[in-house]
């Protein structure tokens, strides 16, 4: 396709290049870096939507019935729409675009040493579909009946019939937005996998590919293999909504539980689709800032693949008590607990990487370390839910909410902040302010724990999910329970307030930050051998050659404590 043209740009950038206009440069670009920026900024904007919704409904939980400043009174209908939108937006329109699409697009060509994606126009189409899907989702708040309020899992018959959900148009828009967004990421996934398979720099063998690239590839394959059933299910559900078919309607011979299988067959691998890239980011950062080779590179890779394969066999642990054959719970309990093994092993490997290091607690390193510490709690609390006997009590309580926020918040936010603070100098050619970065770090991590530890306690005490006012439940208004809800909400307000620090630091650094050198962290991987920011075509001095793996830090034969992948060995290479 247009790769040939792009290669030209890479080689004689100065004169073969006409200066693109604003639209062509920022909105209609096929440059992987610009598309990554589009995804990043759209993701950040959607994070504001997700943040605003959680602000409104958490205020309602802490102070039921009050008029929430900036929103107004949260009715039961609003509450359902807000929690549904919060969940859908944070997973599909924040975690996915930032971790997979933005970072995948930005990092893959730079880290494997090529000038662009293999299919740049497919890439542009992918973003455009994604943008349309985001607009449709947000627009659904303004249609008659309002936004869909049947939870991000969208179980029929509630989601299938307007007479049940009372949001006929909103339900269909939600579903259409989700399906369209998946189509967008399918295009992206095809691009990622093809690019890494075909466009690696000369000399870059499979085990010389940085872990974050591997993780994004494995995640893309997981996504592509799991999303088919869900897109099919979404179309069936849309037929049920709009054409009156009965795929999920028991009165017409359908089965509502079928949707749950289709949804979770995608939904559980989806957890790993976002987890793996975050794990990859953490691998890059902890190696750079502990000046250490990654402990057992191949083990990380194989456990990631193992996790990916196993993740296709755990989905029904979301449905233990949903009316599936109870004997099936035994099988899924076993597979679910087994998946703890490769994930735990990855964490052990990362902890092992710190051993013998020379650890610098920069802002990106703090985020990466916080990811490990917080994700550990999210991981171990999953055991309670994967064990069928214990899940009977915990299912659909706040224990579940707290558990997956201890996994998803580290993934979507801690992972993204780690990535943004680490690659910011490369992306924008400017350094971010470290002091404000650390202020933002502590102002996020501390309140985060004060939000979700109370939710664990509330879950243990029986708070069930998606309830807009607990005053209807005498057993849930016992002493101290409302205090815990208020504590969680106040902590959320603190956390949200500190995000202003991040946004200010981000934009001030973007325009006024000190100029970043090519390789500010003394890192090995290829993106740090391109100028900051890299021009169209990435490597103006010519595409790089690769001589070794990405994690040769503190090698005993070297005076420097790093050894870029592109640097030819003075003596014949040892690899």
């Amino acid at each position, binding site marked *: 396709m247009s790769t040939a043209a792009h290669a030209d740009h890479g080689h004689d950038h100065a004169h073969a290049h006409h200066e693109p206009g604003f639209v062509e440069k920022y909105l209609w670009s096929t440059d992987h870096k610009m598309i990554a920026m589009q995804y990043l900024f759209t993701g950040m904007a959607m994070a504001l939507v997700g943040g605003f919704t959680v602000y409104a409904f958490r205020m309602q939980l802490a102070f039921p019935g009050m008029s929430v400043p900036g929103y107004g009174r949260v009715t039961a209908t609003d509450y359902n729409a807000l929690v549904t939108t919060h969940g859908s937006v944070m997973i599909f329109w924040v975690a996915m675009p930032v971790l997979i699409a933005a970072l995948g697009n930005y990092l893959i060509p730079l880290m494997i040493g090529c000038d662009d994606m293999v299919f740049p126009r497919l890439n542009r189409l992918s973003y455009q579909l994604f943008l349309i899907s985001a607009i449709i989702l947000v627009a659904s708040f303004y249609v008659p009946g309002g936004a869909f309020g049947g939870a991000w899992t969208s179980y029929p018959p509630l989601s299938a019939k307007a007479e049940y959900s009372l949001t006929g148009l909103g339900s269909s828009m939600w579903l259409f937005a989700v399906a369209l967004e998946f189509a967008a990421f399918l295009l992206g996934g095809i691009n990622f996998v093809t690019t890494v398979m075909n466009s690696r720099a000369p000399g870059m063998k499979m085990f010389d590919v940085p872990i974050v690239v591997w993780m994004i590839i494995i995640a893309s394959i997981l996504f592509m293999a799991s999303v088919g059933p869900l897109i099919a299910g979404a179309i069936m559900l849309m037929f049920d909504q709009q054409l009156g078919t009965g795929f999920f309607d028991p009165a017409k011979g359908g089965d509502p539980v079928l949707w749950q299988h289709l949804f979770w067959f995608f939904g559980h691998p989806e957890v790993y689709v976002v987890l793996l890239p975050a794990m990859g980011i953490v691998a890059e950062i902890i190696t750079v800032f502990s000046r250490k080779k990654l402990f057992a590179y191949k083990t990380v890779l194989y456990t990631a693949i193992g996790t990916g394969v196993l993740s296709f066999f755990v989905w029904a642990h979301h449905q233990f008590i949903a009316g599936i054959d109870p004997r099936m719970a035994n099988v899924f309990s076993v597979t679910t607990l087994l998946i703890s093994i490769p994930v735990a092993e990855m964490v052990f490997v990362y902890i092992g990487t710190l051993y013998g290091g020379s*650890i610098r607690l920069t802002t990106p390193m703090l985020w990466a370390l916080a990811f490990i510490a917080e994700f550990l709690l999210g991981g171990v609390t999953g055991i309670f839910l994967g064990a069928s006997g214990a899940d009977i009590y915990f299912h659909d309580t706040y224990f579940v909410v707290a558990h997956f926020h201890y996994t998803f918040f580290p993934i979507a936010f801690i992972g993204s902040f780690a990535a943004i603070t680490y690659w910011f100098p490369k992306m924008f050619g400017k350094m971010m302010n470290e002091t404000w970065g650390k202020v933002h770090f502590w102002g996020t991590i501390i309140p985060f724990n004060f939000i979700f530890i109370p939710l664990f306690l509330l879950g243990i005490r029986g708070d069930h999910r998606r309830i807009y006012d607990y005053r209807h439940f005498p057993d849930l208004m016992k002493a101290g329970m409302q205090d815990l809800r208020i504590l969680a909400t106040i902590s959320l307000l603190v956390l949200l307030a500190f995000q202003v620090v991040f946004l200010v630091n981000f934009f001030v650094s973007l325009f006024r930050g000190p100029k970043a050198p090519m390789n500010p962290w003394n890192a090995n991987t290829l993106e740090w051998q391109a100028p900051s920011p890299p021009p169209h075509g990435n490597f103006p001095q010519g595409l790089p050659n690769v001589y070794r793996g990405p994690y040769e830090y503190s090698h005993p034969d070297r005076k420097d404590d790093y050894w870029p992948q592109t640097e030819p060995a003075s003596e014949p290479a040892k690899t």
Partner: protein
Amino acid sequence: MIDQYVESASTYAGDIDNVILLILAIVGFWFLLAQAVFFGLIFKFKARPNVKAQYVSGEKPHEKRWVALPHYATLVFDVLIIVMAIKVWHEVKINLPEANSTVRVIAQQWAWTFVHPGPDNKLDTADDITTVDELHVELNKTYHFELTSRDVLHSFSVPVFRLKQDAIPGRIIKGWFKPTQTGQFDIQCTEICGIGHGIMPARIVIETEAAHRLWNQANAPKLADAAPTTPPTSAGGMP
């Protein structure tokens, strides 16, 4: 652990609590150990001037051991948890002991209808007692429930029993419980079921044999004038 906060009022509540406690002990230990090692390493290996990091590939057998050993430990403890969890799962969800009585639980947007067998202890007879949002059961009797829904998915949850089961329209799902303590407790709908999901509370009233007999007598439809479908005297309703 759970029973400090939520009363334990069924025969299997204690067993579920014990599984939770077992998991807490196991994962709590490993969680604290992992965090201790993690923070210990961060402090021990903080960058110092002129000290270069070590070069460790993690591929040598004596290095791999540090990952392999926790790996096997995870496996062993996983198996232990699985065995205990499945044991309780069988007790609650697969095993169906002989019942003294059967109640029908019907969920709809946004109320619970409970059909009690009445004085003759048989469902679908003229003396069935139908209530809304209030379920009356007798202490130390084994009950079967027949759970269904009239419209969307709901979930029948009785936290003091540690019992939860989704209700599906078009299907009747059977289960059981045996109350072990008198009192009035919440029944929750734990599956989102529309805009009224938050206002679908009900209460379970667990009574002694004598109190339950009185309630049966007071509320059973008079056989002379009642068809089984007659609405009940409103025994339910929320405070």
